[in-house]
């Protein structure tokens, strides 16, 4: 129900959404440089974009500025997730591991596309 209602107004709200998550002045260059970008670079772009992953709202990661401190910093991911499938599962739907988590279910709620999630996984795996 709620999700249907959501998809109708998705386009209207997307601009207004998450304003308080925003780092002033962050701009995504994903389109301009699409051709030359590696999967990892694309993943970083998706992760940092406040209208996409916006992981910095909660996680400190990489060279991202003004990160939130709601969630653990994303470091040493290869060590913590020897199995990349588990990392993808956490990003696709964090509520499976922790039902009441504040982390958005990026795959289940189609916040990101499957391809974008693959890119984010590749990027996060380098941290």
């Amino acid at each position, binding site marked *: 129900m709620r999700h249907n209602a*959501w998809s109708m107004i998705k386009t209207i709200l997307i601009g207004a959404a998450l304003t308080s998550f925003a780092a002033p002045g962050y701009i995504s260059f994903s389109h301009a440089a699409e051709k030359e970008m590696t999967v990892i670079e694309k993943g970083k772009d998706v992760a940092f974009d406040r209208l996409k992953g916006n992981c910095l709202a909660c996680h400190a990661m990489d060279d991202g500025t003004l990160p939130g*401190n*709601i969630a653990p910093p994303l470091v040493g991911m290869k060590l913590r997730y020897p199995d990349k499938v588990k990392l993808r599962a956490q990003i696709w739907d964090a509520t499976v591991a922790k039902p009441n988590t504040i982390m958005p279910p990026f795959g289940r709620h189609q916040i990101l596309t499957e391809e974008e999630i693959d890119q984010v996984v590749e990027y996060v795996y380098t941290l």
Partner: protein
Amino acid sequence: MKRLLTATLAIGLLGASTLPVHAGPEQDLEQFRSYFYKRFPNTPKDDFINGVYAIDPASREQWEAIEEFPPYELNLEKGKELFNTPFKNGKTYASCFENGGIGIANRYPFFDTKSGRVITLELAINECRKANGEAPLNYEKGPLADISAYMHYTARGKRINIVVPDDPRALAAYERGKASFFAKRGQLNMSCADCHIANAGNKIRADILSPALGQTTHFPAYRSTWGDLGTLHRRYVGCNEQVRAKPYEAQSEEYRDLEYFHTYISNGLQINGPSTRK
């Protein structure tokens, strides 16, 4: 079933899993207070009315400077004038309220056993207009926010005193409000409690999240983000939208019930509206 689940989660969140699921409003209040007192041991209990400034000394100084010459002063003047201007029939707002509307905002919202609804101050203002043959005003901003600001101003220092009367419909409204506060919403799947209970004091990107305790005492608020004065329900709309949830209408039953719960849990704190916020 769904409500039972949320209630269980709510209690779990507050770390008091030994309490029965049917904890009443009074037990909720106890739990809320002790959770926030423990989480912010350096904040004097009466200071929770100041939201994020009660827990973040760095931003407090700047805010206190703004409150010296507050941008809502003009709104207060307009509100007072509107409040005292007679309707076309010669009556005034004072005729609709106890004590002529002065110093009563700390008892809103209340559960009206006659109509079986939660009556907020803003709803009462518009009902007063309608009863006197005047058109209702916008519930989020403008003249109604000004009038509400003035009425809150006259109640400054009075302690919030919300009662859940012994009426199953009142308890049901309270429980609906509570469930709403703990319900995951929107594409981003977050609840009010996720941000303002579990993560109060944490940073979401660069913003510090205010504790739910004391959140309703200082409305209407003049937000620099809005560039004007807005009501509590305007803020609810914003907090729903930022998780990409479809907001409810200001003064819908959903938001009135939410406000009932949300204000109840600040019982005993002083009214300090209107205020300035980022």
